[in-house]
């Protein structure tokens, strides 16, 4: 049923309409059309080449040196899913990424998973809830976790940096929010578009993967632009690397199969809103080390004002307390790209408190950067009083995909 690999054929730019016509006359020897999800894909042995649309509205490109969703301007919504594999071989894993690649392109074009079917007696290939919505700047970032390498006997390719994160002071990790073999980070300016993407990719991989945990999140931007605030009302993301050189230094992996990829650290951090809300503004600002309204470092007036953590006032006190979050984080001396989202998921059943917080996400060249910051915060961080880390995961996110290639190809070429 597979189509033989013909380089000229795969390289040839061919529209979907033409392809359907070709297959319709029996090129693959299989009837196309109404066989629903995966019918076209199966018939074509996943060689279907999808391309970034040049006409789609609010569209982020899929193809490029890096995956989308890392340096892509932060969207307003995320649906993050950590998956476990049910498949048992490297070959099946490769098939999965080949299957997903064109589907991801379609989703990011704001298109349905498959062309509409004519047979109403089978479920539709696309679940349909994104109909009528545009691409909403959907970005999809795929990564693989440390456990995957052990499950599929490919430990020799596991980067030494890809390890479960060590235990940090005050961690209260729960298994149901921790780890995973694969991740799909779907970010979009529409919550339904983001959810639709994860739902459909998981559905298309039925029997191959299952969701271990997932989290929806949101970010809101002031009308005038600028850094969004977390649920403690402080700006989150100030100090992110922005220019190409900084990103090269802090975010992109330099060599190996992960070259031009990045490590994603996800932490589900519960924020105790009730206790925070009965804390004086002065103490809140001393906790973060910044002024709440402006986002300026304590003692400064503008969000992006330079500051020296060692700077003291006339009484010999630190301008930015040495137990404050910003002081300790800056002291670690390392940078990473933070791309976090707030969440509000109802009520904690055991306490009746808000089940709300931050789905912290950072991208870095090496998880050691995150570990250094977290160790620097350590037991000292005044913010610890108001937060509890409940979940943790680390994933190696593939480099970007070139046309004709697929997600993770460099890994499989290295096998």
């Amino acid at each position, binding site marked *: *049923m597979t189509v033989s690999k013909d380089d000229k054929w795969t390289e040839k730019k061919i529209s979907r309409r033409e392809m359907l016509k070709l297959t319709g006359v029996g090129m693959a020897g299989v009837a196309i059309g109404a066989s629903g999800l995966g019918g076209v894909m199966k018939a074509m042995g996943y060689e279907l080449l999808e391309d970034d649309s040049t006409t789609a509205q609010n569209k982020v490109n899929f193809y490029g040196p890096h995956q989308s969703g890392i340096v892509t301007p932060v969207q307003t919504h995320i649906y993050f899913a950590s998956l476990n594999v*049910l498949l048992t071989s490297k070959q099946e894993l490769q098939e999965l990424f080949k299957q997903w690649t064109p589907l991801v392109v379609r989703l990011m074009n704001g298109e349905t998973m498959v062309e509409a079917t004519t047979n109403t007696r089978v479920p539709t290939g696309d679940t349909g809830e994104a109909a009528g919505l545009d691409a909403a700047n959907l970005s999809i970032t795929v990564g693989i976790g440390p456990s995957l390498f052990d499950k599929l006997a490919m430990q020799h390719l596991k980067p030494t940096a890809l390890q479960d994160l060590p235990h940090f002071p005050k961690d209260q990790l729960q298994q149901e929010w921790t780890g995973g073999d694969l991740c799909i980070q779907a970010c979009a300016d529409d919550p339904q578009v983001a959810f639709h993407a994860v739902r459909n990719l998981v*559905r298309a991989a039925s029997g191959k993967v299952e969701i271990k945990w997932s989290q929806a999140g949101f970010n809101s931007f002031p009308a005038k632009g600028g850094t969004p605030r977390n649920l403690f009302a402080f700006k989150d993301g100030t100090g992110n690397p922005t220019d190409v050189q900084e990103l090269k230094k802090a975010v992109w992996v330099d060599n190996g199969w992960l070259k031009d990829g990045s490590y994603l650290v996800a932490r589900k951090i519960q924020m105790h809103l009730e206790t925070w809300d009965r804390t004086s503004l002065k103490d809140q600002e001393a906790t973060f080390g910044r002024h709440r309204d402006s986002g300026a470092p304590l003692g400064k007036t503008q969000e992006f004002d330079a500051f020296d953590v060692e700077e003291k006032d006339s009484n010999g006190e630190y301008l930015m307390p040495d137990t404050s979050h910003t002081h300790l984080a800056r002291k670690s001396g390392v940078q990473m790209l933070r791309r976090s989202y707030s969440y509000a998921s109802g009520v904690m059943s055991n306490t009746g408190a808000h089940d709300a917080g931050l789905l912290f996400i950072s991208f870095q060249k090496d998880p050691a950067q995150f570990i250094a910051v977290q160790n620097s915060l350590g037991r000292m961080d005044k913010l610890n009083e108001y937060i509890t880390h409940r979940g943790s995961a680390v994933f190696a996110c593939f480099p970007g995909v070139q046309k004709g290639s697929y997600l993770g190809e460099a890994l499989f070429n290295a096998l």
Partner: protein
Amino acid sequence: MKYKSLLSVLVAGGVLMAGCGDTEEAKKEDKPATEQAEPAKEVDLSAELAAYKQFALEQMDQFLMETEKFVNFVKAGDMEGAKATYAPARMYFERSEPIAESFGDLDPRIDGRLADIQEEGKGEEEWTGYHKLEHALWVENTTAGYEAVADQLLADAKELHALVQTVEVTPDLMITGAVDLLNEVSTSKITGEEEIYSHTDLYDFKANIEGAEKIFDILRTKLEEKDAALVTTLDEKFKAVDDLLAKHATADGGYVSYEALTEDDTKALAAAVNQLGEPLSQMGIILE
């Protein structure tokens, strides 16, 4: 005033309807002649439909016989006999549920749970059938006073048996029925909400799966012609569910109590059923 507004609605409605008619006409004219001339071809499934009808009739024969046994135990006050017959008798009903439930009011009379009855705004006194007797046997520990309920159950089972003889099995009933059987498992059996007193949910679970597998088996040849890979996948997925269920089988051919299952057990069963449901929902390709 009221009259006037009613009139205007009628007039507006008439205009709208006329409008619709016009567009329909226009559409038809737009279509190429070939498309109009070709009526939708229906695949010939007469042999498969007959085979399924035969299966359903056999199940209903057995259901009636076993229900009669069960009812006799209840009326004789034989608690042990009644309890032992309860779950196996119900399996014949659960296997053929796509057919059994096509008779709107009989299904709830035979198989209604107290929660279903209350949801419909009815009182407990209107509750009849198997689950009412389940409550008597496992919660009240008696059969005394339940003779009339038992008689009613047998009468309803007889009525169902008679009605099933007249059922017209359609391709949609079979194909939708197979998925519905799995949905039954996913929504009530896997949560232990079907047999909340006897905890014999795994019997129903097994029977629902067998009912779906029967439909798949009957359609197997037709499916192979369309998509042989789908048949292989379905064989694997049915086996995965059966293997998992077999882990919870007892020596006497029955199943352990739902309460003996751990959260990991139910999660694994639910995942296996979902993985079966996705390819099973593709069986409609034979109707193309």
